[in-house]
C-alpha cells in the first residue's frame, strides 16, 4: 500500500485514555475505490432509461424585471419539443426547503411568476426528446420584460430607497424575530473601546465562490408501474429533496422515492433542491423518464454560490495583546432568495468572535437580498469568510503591536470552560495546542510559558495577566 497518512502527535493530550481499537484508527480501503478505478461506480447520470426526455431551462436575461409576456410559439414548433412547463404547471410553485422542520421563509418560486429577480432565474422548462431539441426550444422562448432597477451591493441594498428585491420580505434583509439582523450581545463593547489602549477597525470582503463539483447537479426521474416516481439524484440530502419535492408536487410523500448516495462532489451545492421538482412535474405530465441536469455554465452561474460577505471588525486591544472587545458588522449577500442563507448568517454569528475569549462582543449579522444568484450552503458555511476576516484581523493587530502573531493568538485563545459570545461554554478546545504544534513544525520559537499553555488549564493563561 502506498497511501499517505499524517503523523498523529500524541504528546499533546497525552492524558486522553488510550483505547484499543480493532478497525478504528486503522487504514481501511475505501469501499468505493474499486468501482472508481474500474469506471463501474454508478452515478445518477449513468442510468439510461428508455424514452428518456430532457429538460433545459429558459432563464432570465435580466437582473430584475417584470415579465410582461412569455411566447412559447416558436419553441413549441421545434421538432422534438414535447412540452414546455411554466409556473402554471407547478402545483405549488414555491420552494419550501425547511417547511417540515418549521423553518421559513418560502420566498422563491420554482419557475418565475410575474417577475425575475436575478440573471439566470428559471422561467420555462422545455421538455424534449433530445438534449439538442431542448436547448433549441429553450433558445426560442420569447420573454417580454419591463426592466426594473436592480441592486447588486449589500450595503446599497440596505440603503434607503433601494429597489426592493423580493416583496415577500418587504425589505432587503431577512428579519430575525423582529430584528433586521442576527445579533450577538455579550458584555459591553463600548466600554471596552473606551478603556482600550488601541482600537483597530478594518473591512474585509469576498466575492461569490462556486462549489465546482466535477459532476453537475442533476436528476433522472423514472415513473414506476405503481404510479410512484423514482428519482435518481445527486442530492446531498435525500429526505430534504423528497420532502420538498412532494410539497411542491402536492403529492403524498410516499409517492416519491429518492435513490442517490453516490455523488461526484458536493461541497454544499447539492443541498438545494434545484432540479428534482421540475423534473418530476415533467415526468408526471409526460409519463416518461425525464433528465434534468445542469450544464457546466448553469452550475457556475446559476446554482447557488458561497455567499459574498462584507465584514467590518472593530477591536478594543490592550497594549499587552489582550483583545477586550470586538464589534462586528457582517453582511451576507444572499442574492435574490433566502435558500439557506438566513441559517448560514446565524451560523456565522455563532462563530464570532472566532476561537478567542473576548469578554465583550457585539455583532450585527445581516442576511441581505440583492438581485444576484441566490447563495446558499458551501463547505465552511458561515465560517470560511469570517475566518479570513478574523485571522487577517489578528495578524494586523499583532503587527500594530509588534507582537509575535502566535503569541497574540495564544494569549487570547479560548479554553475549556470559557463562555463564548453566544453563551455556550467551551469544551474540548484545542486551539492552544494546534498553535503550539504549528509553531513546532515550522521552528517558530515560543517562550516556555507559551509552550506550557494548555486548553484544559485556564491558570496557564492567568499567569499572562488575565
Amino acid at each position, binding site marked *: 500500500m502506498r497511501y499517505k497518512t499524517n503523523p498523529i502527535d500524541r504528546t499533546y493530550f497525552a492524558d486522553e485514555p488510550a483505547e484499543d481499537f480493532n*478497525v478504528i484508527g486503522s487504514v481501511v480501503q475505501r469501499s468505493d475505490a474499486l468501482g472508481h478505478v474500474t469506471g463501474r461506480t454508478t452515478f445518477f447520470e449513468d442510468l439510461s432509461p428508455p424514452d428518456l426526455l430532457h429538460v433545459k431551462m429558459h432563464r432570465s436575461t435580466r437582473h430584475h424585471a417584470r415579465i410582461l409576456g412569455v411566447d412559447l410559439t416558436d419553441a413549441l414548433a421545434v421538432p422534438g419539443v414535447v412540452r414546455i412547463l411554466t409556473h402554471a404547471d407547478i402545483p405549488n410553485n414555491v420552494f419550501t426547503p425547511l417547511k417540515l*422542520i418549521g423553518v421559513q421563509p418560502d420566498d422563491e418560486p420554482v419557475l418565475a411568476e410575474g417577475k425575475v429577480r436575478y440573471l439566470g432565474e428559471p422561467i420555462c422548462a422545455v421538455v424534449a426528446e433530445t438534449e439538442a431539441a431542448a436547448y433549441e426550444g429553450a433558445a426560442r422562448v420569447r420573454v417580454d420584460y419591463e426592466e426594473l432597477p436592480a441592486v447588486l451591493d449589500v450595503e446599497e441594498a440596505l440603503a434607503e430607497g433601494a429597489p426592493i428585491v423580493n416583496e415577500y420580505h418587504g425589505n432587503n434583509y431577512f428579519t430575525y424575530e423582529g430584528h433586521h439582523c442576527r445579533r450577538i450581545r455579550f458584555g459591553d463593547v463600548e466600554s471596552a473601546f473606551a478603556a482600550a489602549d488601541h482600537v483597530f477597525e478594518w473591512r474585509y470582503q469576498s466575492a461569490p465562490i462556486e462549489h465546482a463539483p466535477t459532476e453537475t447537479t442533476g436528476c433522472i426521474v423514472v415513473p414506476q408501474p405503481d404510479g410512484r416516481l423514482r428519482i435518481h439524484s445527486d442530492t446531498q440530502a435525500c429526505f430534504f429533496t423528497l420532502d420538498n419535492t412532494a410539497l411542491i408536487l402536492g403529492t403524498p410523500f410516499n409517492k416519491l422515492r429518492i435513490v442517490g448516495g453516490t455523488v461526484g462532489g458536493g461541497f454544499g451545492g447539492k443541498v438545494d433542491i434545484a432540479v428534482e421538482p421540475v423534473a418530476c412535474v415533467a415526468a408526471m405530465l409526460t409519463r416518461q423518464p425525464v433528465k434534468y441536469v445542469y450544464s457546466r455554465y448553469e452550475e457556475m452561474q446559476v446554482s447557488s454560490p458561497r455567499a459574498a460577505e462584507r465584514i467590518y471588525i472593530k477591536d478594543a486591544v490592550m497594549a499587552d495583546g489582550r483583545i477586550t472587545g470586538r464589534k462586528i458588522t457582517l453582511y451576507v449577500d444572499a442574492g435574490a432568495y433566502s435558500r439557506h442563507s438566513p441559517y448560514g448568517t446565524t451560523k456565522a454569528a455563532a462563530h464570532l468572535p472566532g476561537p478567542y475569549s473576548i469578554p465583550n462582543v457585539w455583532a450585527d449579522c445581516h442576511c441581505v437580498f440583492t438581485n444576484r444568484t441566490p447563495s446558499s450552503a458551501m463547505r465552511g458555511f458561515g465560517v470560511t469568510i469570517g475566518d479570513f476576516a478574523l485571522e487577517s484581523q489578528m495578524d494586523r493587530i499583532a503587527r500594530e503591536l509588534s507582537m509575535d502573531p502566535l503569541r497574540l493568538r495564544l494569549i487570547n485563545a479560548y479554553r475549556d470552560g470559557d463562555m463564548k459570545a453566544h453563551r455556550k461554554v467551551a469544551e474540548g478546545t484545542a486551539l492552544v495546542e494546534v498553535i503550539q504544534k504549528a509553531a513546532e*513544525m515550522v521552528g517558530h520559537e515560543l517562550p516556555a510559558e507559551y509552550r506550557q499553555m494548555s486548553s484544559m488549564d485556564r491558570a496557564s493563561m492567568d499567569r499572562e495577566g488575565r
Partner: protein
Amino acid sequence: MAKLRGRGYASVNYPTGMNLGGDPSQALIHATTTGTFVVSLSSVDLGQGLKTVVAQCAAETLGLPMENILVDTADTDTGPHCMGTFASRGTHRVGNAVIMAAAEAREVMLAVAAEELEVDAGDLETDGTGYIQVKGAEEKRVHITDLALAAHFTHGRTISGRGIFLKEKNDPVPETGEMDPDSCQAHACTVAVVEVDDETGVVEVLEMHNAYEIGRALNPAMVAQQVEGGAWMGMSHALFESTEPYYPTRDHGPGDFNEYLMPGPADIPMYHNAILERPAGNGPFGAKGIGEMTANAPIPAIANAIFDACGVRLDTMPFTPERVLRGLDELRGNHH
C-alpha cells in the same frame, strides 16, 4: 525583479453540525443468515468516504471484521431518515447513529451466542476476527457465520439494532444571540509560505504547514485525503476563485473550468500536516468532523503571508495578481 518570500499564520476552530430545526440521523442494522451485517442508511457519500467510515464504526462496535459489514444507503424506501451530508455532520451524526444501532445489535448477538454456547452473555467477548468467545476460555466460541444461521433457523431471533443521533433544535435568543448551535469544535493552525513576484503580483504558495485537532482519526488515510484536499481548496479560494471576478458587478462570470480558475496540479505547494487527537465526548469514538474546517485556515494564512512577503494587505478575496500589484504600486507610490 524580485521574488519576495513571506510566512503567514492563521488558527481556527470549526463547529460540527447544526441546530436548525433539530439535526437527526438514523441507522438500522441487521444480520443476514450468514452473519453479514447490513447497515441501512439514507446518508449520502459525497466522496469524503462516509460509507467506509460508518462501516468501520459498525465493525468496531460489533467486534467483527470489516468484511462482515455492508452499507446500504441513500434509498429513501429502504433507509431510515438522515438530515443530509453537510455541516461536517456526516461522520459525527451518522457515525453515532451507527454505533448506537451496532451496540444494540451486538447485545442481541451476544445474547444469542449465550444461548448457543449455554453461557452467560456477560462472559462473552468478540475477538475481532468473527468469533464470539468466552472470556478466559477462548476455545469455547462460535463464529458469527454459524451464530447467525442458528439465530435464524434455531433460535428465531433477529440480530438487529436501531440507532439515532439527534442534536435537538435550539432557537437563538433574538436579543443576545444565545444559542447552542453545534456539537463539538475541531481546530486547525496553518502556516503558509508564499513567494510574491513583485513585478506581476503573482503569488505562489510554496509550503503549507497544517496542524489539525480532529478528535479522532477514524481512518488515517482518509483523514490525509480530507486535509490535503481541504488545504488545496483553501488555497484555491484564496488565490483564484470567484463566480464574479468583478463583484459586485456581474460581468465576466466564468462559465467553465477554463475561466473558473483553480490551482492545477502544477500549482500545489508542499504540505506538512500533523494531527492531534482530543476525542470529543459526543463524537463517534471521539471524532469531530473535519470536512469543512480544512479549507478555512489557509485563506487568512496566505493573506498574512502575502503581507509578510511584500507589505500588501489583501482585505478582499481572492488575492489576484491584480490586487497584489495594485497594492505594491500603492506602496511604491508608483502609479503606472
